[in-house]
Structures are given as structure tokens and as C-alpha cells.
């Protein structure tokens, strides 16, 4: 075993934990031998059928208990295991006198190769097939297909990466932290860690070299794993863990920097039912209420004004006296609607989506604004309304007037397209506020499809080009006295949140589970500190360098006290 002391990866959140390492990889399936079958093709086929059926049944069982997106993935995997074409292929191979293990393994490999040939887009599905083949062969060999043998104590889970089928069966209460050698900030492991508030470091090569039982400090804030820590390191970790716990116990006050500069901490919501949890976790309001849920289940017609009004009222009623920013329907690209989108675009992310689609279907825009204004009249919340996918000053003026005309006082635009960030001074002079959608702003700045795994490395909001655009918007907001918010994954990154504040952002909106970490992080730095940390990030060449430079600047500031 190589002596590894410190490993570097991408930290998710800002937690710190100490615990023993446990590797969780299935016992690798020994490649099925090329020995001839001794029981004949018919008996082998019966074994293959039974094994595939047991894998499929297990996947379906897990799907039933999983959240919606995981369920879709697991159900698709079950269908692949049941696939008639797969069984045909197995049958043909068995005709040559091989064992069921060999036939099943080869049949999956054949389909995996076919998918790999179909392009990058399918690489992930091909990985699914390798996993399924492994499970089926394990079933044939009578081995367990379970990922983890519960060690009976809390542990730091170390793996190459985790698949939805794996995490669906984990007892997460035992997991102190995830550390994976592969995967990035958008991997399944990272998403699960954020959702469940579990400390995680992803993309930390070398972690496979740590022996089971090794004591480690997992420091997500610094993106570091320390193996066999000495007493001083342990004491430091324990004191940070205690400080974090204490901070989480304090009733959540309004978000602010160390010098008292307020930075409003708001929640991103996708459904009215999520409001109560956001309030409980200390949200000062809502920075992004997505309205697509009202529309997505409908194929041909828009919901009525009355239906919409009731949903909006439900959210607004949860935040009396507080700000609730509602985003107008953002249809198109990854969420097309039959009644708004033509569906024949070569390049939907650059097509008639967002405000462009709303303007083309005036009745949908008019109904939504009418319902919002009516819901506002029934509640005490401070309703702000903003438009998605705004590219020009003319669009800004149009939608601001449309929102004001129905009696909603505060109108704004999303900054997702670089054009409006570059002329933010002119855009903000025509509207009341701006909210930066960092996911789309990064996609459009880097010309990297958010949904395409092969270009995921470019989809990093730390890129200095993205930060410079944020700076333009922040400076314009400060000059004109208009609020500038950020909603998107970037706001939930505790260190990036400080950078954003340093660039002039006045509110941050995120998944409610991220609020506590961001609140603690902001409280450590003054506005001047934040500006200095932001400068360090802006001066970098690459996203990873910007993250490191900001970390170093922040550590220098706290060390100097």
C-alpha cells in the first residue's frame, strides 16, 4: 500500500468529518471462462433467464423506493435487463456451447459496444450495461450483488463513483462522507450529497490507495482528504466540526458579511409544497420560484388562470412580508411544451425558448401575469416577477412594461445570455432588478451543452470568463442602485458565494439545504475581504485555478487574524 497522506478533489458543500475508510466496490466479476457448457444450451438458457429476471426484479424493487429521477434510471435499467433483443443474443451465443455466464457477459458487451459507437451521448448508458452485466454474472455465480456489507459503524464511503442503483440501497445514516476517485460536481454522487447534506469530495484520484479502516479527515471546504491525521490536525478538525455544529444551532438570522453588509439568502423552489421546508431552513424569501411544474404535465393546453393563481397563492402565503421572485414560464430547450414550442429546432438551447416562446404565444404570458397579480392581491408577500432568456434591451423594456401593467411593482430579467451581462448597465436602467442564472450563463459563455457529459468539464461557474460577466452585472447594479441576485448551483458553493458577494451580488438563491453552509461562510469575510477573494479568482486562467486562488486568498485572510 502506497503511503498517501493528502488527496485533492472537488469538495461538495463545506462540511468536515473524521472517520474510518471503507471501500465499497463489488467483488469484481471474474471474466467468465471460455469453458464449454456441461449442461447443454437449454439448461444454460434457463439459468440465464433466471439470473436476468432476478437482477431486473431487484432493480424494480429499488426503483419503487427511490426518488423520481433515480426511479426513471432504475426502471430503464430493468427494461434493459429484460430486453428481448438481449435474450435473443444470449440464445444465439448459447448455441455455440458456452456457459450462461459467458453468453450473458458477451451479449451485454456487444450492446455496450453498439452504444459506445453511437457517440459520446451514450457512453453513460454503456457504463450502465457493464454494471448490469456484472450484476447478472454475479447472480449466475451465486455471489451477492449488494454493493455494501454494512460494517456496523459509521464510515467514510470510498468508491470509484456511485451509480443510482448503488446509492438507492445504501443506509445513508451510516455514511459520514463520500469520497470518489472519479466524477465531478455534477455527478450522481455530488447531487446526492447536496440533496442529503452529506459531506463529499468527488474526483479525488489516489483515494483507492487508502486501506480500509484508515482514519481520515474529509474536509469538503478545502477539497482535501487527510489520511492518518496527527493529534494537532485532529484537534483542528474537531474544533471546526464543533464550530459548524454551533453555527447550525443558532437561529438563522439574515445573511450578511462579517462587516454587516447584507446578502439576502433565498430559496430556489420548484413546487409550492417545498415552501415550508425552505422557511424551516432559514430562507429569507424565495429567489427563484420555477413555474414549469404547472405546465409540464400538459401536452396540448396551458393551465387555467384559476389553477395557476391557487398555486402562486400557496407559495406567496408562506412568505408574508418577504420577497418571492417568480420566474415566468421557461419553456423550451430541456423542457419543451407542445403549445409553446415548435419542436423542430436543430438547436433548442439557442431556439425559441423562455421569453421568446412567451412572446410568440401572447395568451400564455397574459394568463400567467393575470394569475400572479391576482395571487399577490390575496397575500402579504412582496412579489417580484422576472423573465427568463432575455437577450436584448428591447426585450427587457417589453417584459418590464408587461409585468408593471398588471399591477406588479417589481419586474426584472434573468441574466443567462452573455449579451445582457455585457450591457448590464443599459439593461438594468430599463428594469428593476437582475437575477443571474449561473447554469445557463456558463452554458452560453462556454458554448457547452449543460446536458452533455462529454463537455461537463467546461460547465464550471468558477471560470474567470463567467466571473467577469457577473462582475459586469454587479457593477451595473451598484452604480444604478438596483439589486442583483444569483440563482443557480454557483450560489450554493460556500466559497463561490463569497466571490459573488465580492463581485457586487446582493442576494443568493439556492436549494434550501445549502443555506446554512453559505450563511456561515459569508459571515467570515467583510465586503473588502470578499472583493479581494473575487479579484484573486478573476485573475486566474482556468476554473480550477480560480477556485484554488480564491481558497488561498480566503485562507490568507483568516490566518492573518
Amino acid at each position, binding site marked *: 500500500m502506497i503511503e498517501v497522506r493528502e488527496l485533492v478533489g472537488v469538495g461538495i458543500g463545506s462540511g468536515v468529518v473524521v472517520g474510518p475508510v471503507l471501500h465499497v466496490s463489488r467483488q469484481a466479476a471474474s471474466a467468465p471462462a471460455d469453458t464449454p457448457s456441461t449442461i447443454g444450451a437449454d439448461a444454460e438458457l434457463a439459468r440465464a433467464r433466471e439470473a436476468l429476471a432476478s437482477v431486473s426484479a431487484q432493480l424494480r424493487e429499488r426503483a419503487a423506493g427511490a426518488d423520481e429521477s433515480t426511479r426513471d434510471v432504475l426502471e430503464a435499467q430493468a427494461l434493459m435487463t429484460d430486453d428481448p*433483443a438481449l435474450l435473443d443474443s444470449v440464445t444465439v451465443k448459447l448455441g455455440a456451447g458456452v456457459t450462461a455466464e459467458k453468453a450473458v457477459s458477451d451479449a451485454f458487451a456487444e450492446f455496450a459496444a453498439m*452504444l459506445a459507437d453511437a457517440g459520446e451521448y451514450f457512453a453513460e*448508458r454503456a457504463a450502465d450495461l457493464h454494471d448490469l452485466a456484472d450484476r447478472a454474472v454475479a447472480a449466475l455465480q451465486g455471489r451477492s450483488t449488494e454493493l455494501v456489507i454494512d460494517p456496523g459503524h459509521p464510515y467514510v464511503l470510498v468508491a470509484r463513483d456511485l451509480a443510482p442503483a448503488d446509492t438507492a440501497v445504501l443506509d445513508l445514516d451510516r455514511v459520514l462522507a463520500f469520497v470518489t476517485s472519479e466524477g465531478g460536481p455534477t455527478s450522481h454522487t455530488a447531487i446526492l450529497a447536496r440533496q442529503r447534506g452529506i459531506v463529499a469530495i468527488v474526483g479525488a484520484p489516489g483515494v483507492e490507495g487508502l486501506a480500509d479502516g484508515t482514519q481520515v479527515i474529509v474536509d469538503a471546504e478545502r477539497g482535501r482528504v487527510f489520511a492518518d491525521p496527527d493529534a494537532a490536525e485532529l484537534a483542528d478538525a474537531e474544533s471546526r466540526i464543533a464550530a459548524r455544529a454551533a453555527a447550525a444551532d443558532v437561529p438563522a438570522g439574515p445573511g450578511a458579511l462579517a462587516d454587516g453588509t447584507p446578502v439576502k439568502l433565498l430559496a430556489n423552489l420548484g413546487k409550492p409544497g417545498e415552501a415550508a421546508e425552505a422557511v424551516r431552513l432559514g430562507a429569507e424569501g424565495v429567489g427563484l420560484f420555477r413555474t414549469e411544474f404547472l405546465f409540464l404535465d400538459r401536452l396540448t393546453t396551458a393551465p387555467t388562470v384559476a389553477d395557476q393563481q391557487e398555486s402562486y397563492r400557496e407559495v406567496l402565503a408562506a412568505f408574508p412580508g418577504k420577497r418571492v421572485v417568480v420566474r415566468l414560464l421557461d419553456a423550451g430547450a430541456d423542457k419543451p411544451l407542445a403549445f409553446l*414550442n415548435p*419542436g*423542430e429546432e436543430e438547436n433548442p438551447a439557442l431556439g425559441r425558448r423562455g421569453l421568446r416562446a412567451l412572446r410568440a404565444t401572447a395568451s400564455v404570458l397574459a394568463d400567467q401575469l393575470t394569475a400572479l397579480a391576482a395571487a399577490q392581491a390575496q397575500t402579504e408577500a412582496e412579489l417580484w416577477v422576472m423573465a427568463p432568456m432575455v437577450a436584448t434591451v428591447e426585450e427587457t423594456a417589453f417584459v418590464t412594461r408587461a409585468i408593471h401593467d398588471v399591477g406588479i411593482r417589481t419586474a426584472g430579467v434573468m441574466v443567462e445570455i452573455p449579451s445582457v451581462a455585457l450591457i448590464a448597465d443599459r439593461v438594468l436602467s430599463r428594469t428593476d432588478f437582475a437575477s443571474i442564472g449561473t447554469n445557463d450563463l456558463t452554458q452560453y459563455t462556454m458554448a457547452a451543452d449543460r446536458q452533455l457529459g462529454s463537455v461537463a468539464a467546461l460547465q464550471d461557474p468558477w471560470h474567470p470568463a463567467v466571473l467577469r460577466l457577473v462582475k459586469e452585472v454587479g457593477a451595473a447594479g451598484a452604480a444604478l442602485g438596483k439589486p442583483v441576485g444569483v440563482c443557480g448551483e454557483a450560489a450554493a458553493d460556500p466559497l463561490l458565494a463569497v466571490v459573488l458577494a465580492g463581485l457586487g451580488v446582493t442576494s443568493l438563491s439556492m436549494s434550501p439545504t445549502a443555506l446554512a453552509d453559505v450563511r456561515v461562510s459569508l459571515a467570515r469575510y467583510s465586503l473588502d475581504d470578499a472583493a479581494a477573494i473575487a479579484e484573486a479568482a478573476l485573475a486566474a486562467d482556468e476554473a480550477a485555478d480560480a477556485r484554488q486562488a480564491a481558497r488561498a486568498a480566503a485562507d490568507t485572510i483568516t490566518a492573518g487574524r
Partner: protein
Amino acid sequence: MERTVTIASGHGLHARPAKLFTQAVAASGHKVTIGRPGGSPVNAASILGIIAAGFENGDEVVLDVEGDESERVLGELSEFLTTDHDEAAG
């Protein structure tokens, strides 16, 4: 009985739409194939075959249904393919 239709889903017949389609085919109890005009058809109950065929938004495909109620099944499956099923959060 066959019919030529145009795929409407934004991202073609992959992922979730492919899953829903093969489920609908299996539920129909009929023998169904799908393929490009002039190309070799694949078993429409095979999610692997369909994903590997890489049907994209706007592609024309030939649906062929054999069975007792082929007209009804063909109608339902055609409607499925000409409806946009892609949806995602956020």
C-alpha cells in the same frame, strides 16, 4: 400494418421517451417493429435496440404492427411518437 411518422421528442427517442415507448409496446401485446424508411427495422420492445438506433427529433420512422388490434395499437404508438415527451426540472 405500417405507418410512417416523425419523431417529436426534443431529444429524440432516448432515455425517458425510449423507456416509455418500449413500455407501451410491451403493454400492447403486439409484435411491433420500428425502423428508418428503407432501413432494417428493430424490435420496438427492445430498449437497447431503440437507443442504439439513435432516432432523433425530426427523424421519419416506419412503425409496423402485427396483431389482433393492429390498427388501434398503431394509432396509439403513432400518437406517442408524434408527441414531445422530454421534460426535465429546472
